[in-house]
């Protein structure tokens, strides 16, 4: 197993290189001068522009630029933001915890509601619960997140004053840990729910399909014929169906990170999504590269965990992992 882990981590390196190279190429294709866009709003004369440009470091070739960036990366230096001059690692380090908090909460909300829902509807397909519940979740999915966000803010936060309106938590000095956790969760709830809206329907539907086919399996039918109780059959099916859920996790993790741009804007959440959008708007190359690397790392880590979970859930895969040295994963 540890040999497998080492192989996996080693094999992630070319992927990371590929991603950064792709990002670098994309940035070259994107029109717009890198760096200073958005900071030259006012009336600046040709003379002033020429003067400032002349002092700027000379443009380097793409290959040289990439080489410099990679050599910096090896030393743990991602460069400095062209927007505010801070080290990219600092900028990312500030945004990342907020996004992880938000997406983690959203993931919990999604799975916590959608999987039981899928199981219940699969247990009684075509029932009123199945049909109405499914329709309701699809309705939530089709609701654009900016509209959902505004509705949540208007009603839950402003009219009923149940949860904070916007922004990450401010932990008062001297607060106990439980108070800190409660405040944090209160602030994360509305944006996480907003983020979860689009995930619910998908995961619930997927869960329903998976459970349905699991419940329909011949051996279960046979087992039930032999007298296995309905509950036990469902439990069997649930365990068996865990594998596709693990796959699904790998599918929706990157989506959650990308999908939070709008939610982070609406809820003034200083996370990675907003940072990304801002960096693209200002063509802040070092930050975009750093963010791409970061999200790639997160996804690769998630994939690795998913694969390990596979091995835990499905013995056949475990055997393969340990038995086949050259197997892909």
């Amino acid at each position, binding site marked *: 197993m540890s040999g497998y882990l080492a192989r996996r981590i080693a094999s992630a390196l070319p992927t990371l290189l590929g991603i950064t190279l*792709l990002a670098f190429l994309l940035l070259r294709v994107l029109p717009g001068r890198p760096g200073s866009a958005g900071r030259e709003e006012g009336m600046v004369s040709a003379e002033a522009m020429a003067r400032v440009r002349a002092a700027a470091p000379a443009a380097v070739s793409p290959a040289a630029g990439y080489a410099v960036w990679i050599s910096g990366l090896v030393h743990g230096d991602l460069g400095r933001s062209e927007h505010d001059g801070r080290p990219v690692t600092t900028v990312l380090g500030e945004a990342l915890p907020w996004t992880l908090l938000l997406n983690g909460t959203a993931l919990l909300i999604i799975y916590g509601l959608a999987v039981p829902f899928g199981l219940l509807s699969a247990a009684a397909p075509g029932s009123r619960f199945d049909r109405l519940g499914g329709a309701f979740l*699809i309705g939530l999915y089709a609701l654009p997140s900016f509209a959902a966000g505004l509705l949540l803010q208007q009603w839950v936060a402003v009219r009923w004053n149940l949860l904070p309106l916007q922004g990450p938590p401010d932990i008062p000095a001297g607060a106990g840990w439980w108070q800190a956790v409660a405040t944090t969760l209160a602030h994360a709830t509305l944006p996480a729910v907003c983020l979860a809206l689009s995930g619910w329907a998908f995961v619930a539907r997927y869960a329903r399909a998976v459970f349905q086919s699991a419940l*329909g399996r011949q051996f279960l039918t046979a087992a039930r014929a032999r007298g296995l109780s309905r509950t036990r059959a469902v439990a069997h099916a649930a365990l068996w169906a865990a594998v596709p859920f693990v796959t699904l996790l790998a*599918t929706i993790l990157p989506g959650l990170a990308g999908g939070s741009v709008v939610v982070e804007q609406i809820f003034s959440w200083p996370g990675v999504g907003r940072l990304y959008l801002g960096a*693209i*708007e200002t063509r802040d190359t070092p930050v975009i590269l750093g963010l791409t690397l970061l999200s790639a790392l997160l*996804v*690769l880590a998630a994939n690795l965990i998913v694969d390990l979970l596979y091995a835990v859930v499905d013995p056949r895969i475990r055997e393969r992992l340990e038995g086949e040295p050259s197997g892909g994963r």
Partner: protein
Amino acid sequence: MGADRRSPARRPGGILRGHGRRGLSIGFLAALFGVALFAPLIANDRPLVARVGGRFSFPALGDLFRFGANTGDFGRPEINWASPPPGVEVLLGTPLPWSYRGIRLEETLEPPGWRHLLGTDALGRDLLARLVHGARVSFLIGLGATLAAIGAGLVIGATAALRGGLVDVALVRLMDVFSCFPPFILALGIIAAGGRGGPWPVVAGIALNRWASMARYVRGEVIRQRSAESWEAARAAGAAGPRLLLRHVLPLLSGPLAVLGSFGVVHAIILESGLSFVGFGVDPPIPSWGAMLAESRATLDAAWWPVLAPAAALLLTLAALGAAADHAGETRSPAAPLL
């Protein structure tokens, strides 16, 4: 049709209801497709049939093939169809007398009513007319991008799983690179690089960001199931390559893929609306459902109906796609016991 493998007792309403739902949803999708295809004949400020100077003319017909031109659809502007001059006679108008670009600044943000069934937007354009025309672009983007993504995902994912070895390693790397890449950025980059001119760069951008997750899923499932007996039997019988893919892989995955695909269509439409927010996406005044959603945000504090129309259209489409996909998964799956 294919045998329903569950006992009728577990399906309240029985087979008939299931078929009814399926028929309904497929009928709805077909109707929507027809609406998208013939949008200019349904909602147009030019009539279907008119007599100009004693001759018959079909002004709306010309718009049928003007797809993606955003210069505001030219054509005989000397005729004011709303109040035709002498010698011009409107014989048959379109069901909706509004065009998607028909700006009427004196009728901005009118709530739904008899004149405008779904109300008007911030520029006084009929939302139903825009919805009808938006179906064209959204269908193109949603279906085009999703089919491209599923096709690429199926081929690449199955190839990786079936070939194994170095091919698998290389293809998995490629999937990793694309699926780790933040989805929005990829779409943005492709659109920016692909230049303008219609919705094709949007389709390509969205497809490129969706295929990798499809491929990963296909590969995972094929690997998981390739040791199964029926599979081994097929291989032993000499099935290989495209035949194996079509006869054995596709049926195995059709159910989940249909679910993934139905959501993919809506996801693509919503992603397009996200692109519209940032200023990419189709060029105005061509409507897409996503662009309509994006436009509605600015007036959200005063008017709910501009959001409602495209959101409801998305909802119905998704529900119909979902119902159709469910049945695809249930009925057309000889390998269902394997799943």
